């Protein structure tokens, strides 16, 4: 009965109660729990990095007798060491090149992926949303869905159109048509944020239910019924 699972469950119960104590107020128990989680997560991450990155991609490769592999390993190693120079302000310039490589390559990869994987496909999808003829079933529903999507997109963009003329009293005032579009767009934005909030709430509620269920099950096992 006093297995590792028991202590794990017991620890989980205690830490969960410590975190729930935040509902009362900010207290040391909550902070201990937070510090513990951060420490354990960081330690575990460091272990993972050593286990899955440094050891297989640096230590083992440097032990290789193949000069090509060794050379291809030394260059990233030197660039990696130059990044450590960023810790020292006087020597931080040494890491500029490695940082430039990282940022440049990362930006190029992200930009290419965003254009080819998000922008172009999403534009095509927005166009196809109104192509009810391509719909095998529920063409009307697809038309309505496409219309709502189009209206929501256009009106949401219209909400962020802030060009306005000046009223006689000096206050900026947009055109009435744009005011209506912005109002509808604001509704879409509100619904979107509501959906996102609901998703966050459902995710947190699911985690909370899982924690409560786990705690009750542990207590139930501990009590014996």
């Amino acid at each position, binding site marked *: 009965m006093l297995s590792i699972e028991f202590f794990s469950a017991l620890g989980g119960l205690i830490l969960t109660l410590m975190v729930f104590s935040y509902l009362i107020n900010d207290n040391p128990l909550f902070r201990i729990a937070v510090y513990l989680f951060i420490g354990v997560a960081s330690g575990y991450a460091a272990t993972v990095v050593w286990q899955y990155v440094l050891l297989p991609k640096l230590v083992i490769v440097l032990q290789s007798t193949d000069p090509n592999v060794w050379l291809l390993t030394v260059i990233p190693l030197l660039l990696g060491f130059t990044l450590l120079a960023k810790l020292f302000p006087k020597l931080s310039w040494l890491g500029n090149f490695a940082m430039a490589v990282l940022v440049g390559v990362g930006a190029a990869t992200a930009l290419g*992926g965003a254009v080819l994987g998000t922008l172009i496909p999403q534009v095509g*999808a927005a166009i196809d949303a109104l192509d009810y003829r391509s719909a095998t079933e529920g063409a009307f529903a697809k038309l309505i869905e496409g219309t709502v999507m189009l209206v929501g997109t256009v009106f949401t963009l219209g909400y962020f159109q802030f060009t306005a003329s000046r009223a006689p009293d000096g206050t900026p005032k947009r055109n009435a048509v744009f005011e209506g579009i912005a109002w509808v767009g604001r509704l879409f934005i509100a619904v979107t944020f509501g959906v996102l909030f609901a998703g966050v709430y459902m995710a947190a509620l699911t985690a909370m239910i899982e924690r409560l269920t786990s705690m009750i099950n542990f207590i139930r096992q501990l009590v014996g019924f």
Partner: protein
Amino acid sequence: MADLRCPTCGKNNPDFLDNCQFCQSPLRSESTLHTGESPVKKNTGELEPILPQWLKDVRRQGRESAARDAEEEAAKPKVQKNEPPDLLAGLASQARGDDEEVPSWLASINPITKPSPASSSTPEPEPETDFFAQFKDSGMPSAEPKTSEPVQEEMPSWMPEPTAPPPAEEKDELSEWFAKASAEPSTPVEMESELPEWTSPTEAPSYAFKEPSPQPKAEEDLSWLHSLEDSSKAEAQPPAQQETSHSQAELGWLNDLGDATSDVPPGRPATDEPPSWVRAMGGVETSAPVPPVEPKKESSRMSPPVQESAPAGEQPAESNPVWLQGSEGKQGDETSSEKVSPFTRRTGPLRDLIDDDFMPDWLKTATEEPSMPAPGALSEWFRETDLTPQSTPQSDSDASKGSAPAGSEVDSLFSVDVPDWLASSESDSADASLKPAEFPASDSLAPVDLPSWVQAMRPVESALDLPQGRETEYTESAGPLAGLEGVIPVAPIGSSRRPKAVSLKLQATDEQHAGAALLEKILASETTPRPIVAQTNIASQRALRWALSGFFLIVLSAMAYLRTVSMPIPATLPVEVRSASSAIARLPQNSTVLVVIDYEPALASELEVVSGPMLDQLVLTTRARMDFVSTSPNGTALVRRLLTNTGISVPAPNGLDYKAGENYVNLGYLPGGYTGVREFLDSPTTLFPQAGVAAFREYAAVFVLTDHAESGRVWVEQLYARNRADTTFFSVQPVLFATSAQAGPMLQPYYSSQQITGMVNGLSDAARYEFVNNSRPGIARRYWDAFGVGLLMATAAIVLGSLWSLVAGLQARRRGGVG
């Protein structure tokens, strides 16, 4: 005679004139002599035919006197000739030397150098001839008693008229002198009876010409006398004494004059040895030595050198004749120190440049003078001057009778040959003696070349008549302002003339002051700490928070404790869930799939619930080999928990009995974000050698478990971009997403664009998927009732809170309306 047309007024002028006689404009540009230029020798012989009659007469007389003088010179013994009086010894030598430099034509017309008494138009008494014989004996032809009256009568107007003092002033001084002479106990009657005819008062006008030039102070007169003494001493002292004795013998007629004027200075040195006629005047030194000097200077140089007059101050004043002292004592002191010739600037350089070969003085003067009067006018001028001495009493002229011969002789010399510039130079020399620092002898201060008519317009009189009190004001001595006084204020640099003080006080209106005060107040308020307003509703909010938290905990705990399965699950699957289920169902058996763990431990429970039904179906239907890769460092630890909680790794019969390394492989952590994913897509075995595939396309499907839309989009974008580059890369294989409820809406568009094959989003989709999948693994169903109650409670709390806020707003508005 050719005429020159004036370029200014257009009138004709004689060609020998440089300046127009009507408008005084320069007729020739080269007529003026500039500073630093050398005078050009001109042949003036052709101008003799055009000379006026009076000038011709003068020249004729000069020739005759020169011829007679030559005869006398030949008749005289050399001993006597070489024994001039001590006082005039130097003059004789200089005169001889100067004669060599004087042109013949100039010598012939110069009555000073070649006096000719016979040419005088008026009868001259014999004593006059005797008197001037001493000058002949002394070898100074210039001292020959020439005819002064004829010369004076024919005196042209170009003679030093501008510098001539007013006749009335001269007359007064002479009258004073005459008064002194008459006051002597001597016998003026005898003197009157013995005076020659030329000593009559009619000769007095000659002073009008004499006075301008010798009128400088006594020091000036003594200067040239002193120089003459030096020169005579240097030449031959004994002959001078013999000449003196000879002169005394010849001028015996003047010895009687000594009784009339016995003002012999007590301190006079015996070596001076004045002429006999001077001693006859009572030891009074006349200006007789003056004439020989001036012609000599005139003949040798156009103007006397300044050096000759500079040491004048060293000469004692007693050396001056009484009649000169009387006049100089008054007039010389008054005028010599104040008279500043305006022509000094102009004539100064010429003194050094002009030589005897240059244009004769009379011609130069004639050409320089702006207005040359006609000969008729000259006669009138002389008549006017002649009338002036006639008005003096006869008794007062007793003394002048004795000095008149010498004075008239000197005047005749000056009247003929001494031009105005010479007179002014003498006055300049006297002035230079007073102000040696301001007026040096050099011509460095004469850079200005002004027309003569401009110089004539200078306010010389005003400068001369300055009162003593205005001596502090500076008189300009050089440049166009020469002669003007007080034009440039004399003030030291950095004097008390400071600029007027300007107030630095800001001229601002009250409104501007108010605005500035407001701005200062605003700026001050920025740094002033403001007290935090205490919120009275914090306690109520905290109680509400505690109440809601407790209510939720209690309800959900009760639901979990009760394990109720009362809430129904919708039977219809969403489209994306159905697509995911269909895609899994189409996967080949024993295929290798990639499972990406891309979520954090905090949401591990949700992702386990969401992905449980999908993985359970995968394992049950295809028994696929799963390669787990994590893009989060903590993801590697979640693989085992996932497989455990979903029952996949749980041994049978409770689980699917998947074993690590055999049925699934935890590849580990994939670093690098975008680049790591791209690298893994290109070569999974390079990063993870234990991967079950040689290439990424060998994966039958990709399952992405993510709780973050951004990390999930990386996989979508990189896969789609790779597929666009290579359509055969991963276009057939399904891409399935199990997302958290918070990330599902953000990834929904990718499903709409068919970039994602299927997606399970949150507990609701998982419960449905689980319901369709025969309620396996059953996790979603256990949470479903509590999840449902929690949603209802949240919805109720939101509605109640909205209503509370609405009511509170209405109440606040009502209170505001009432108030």
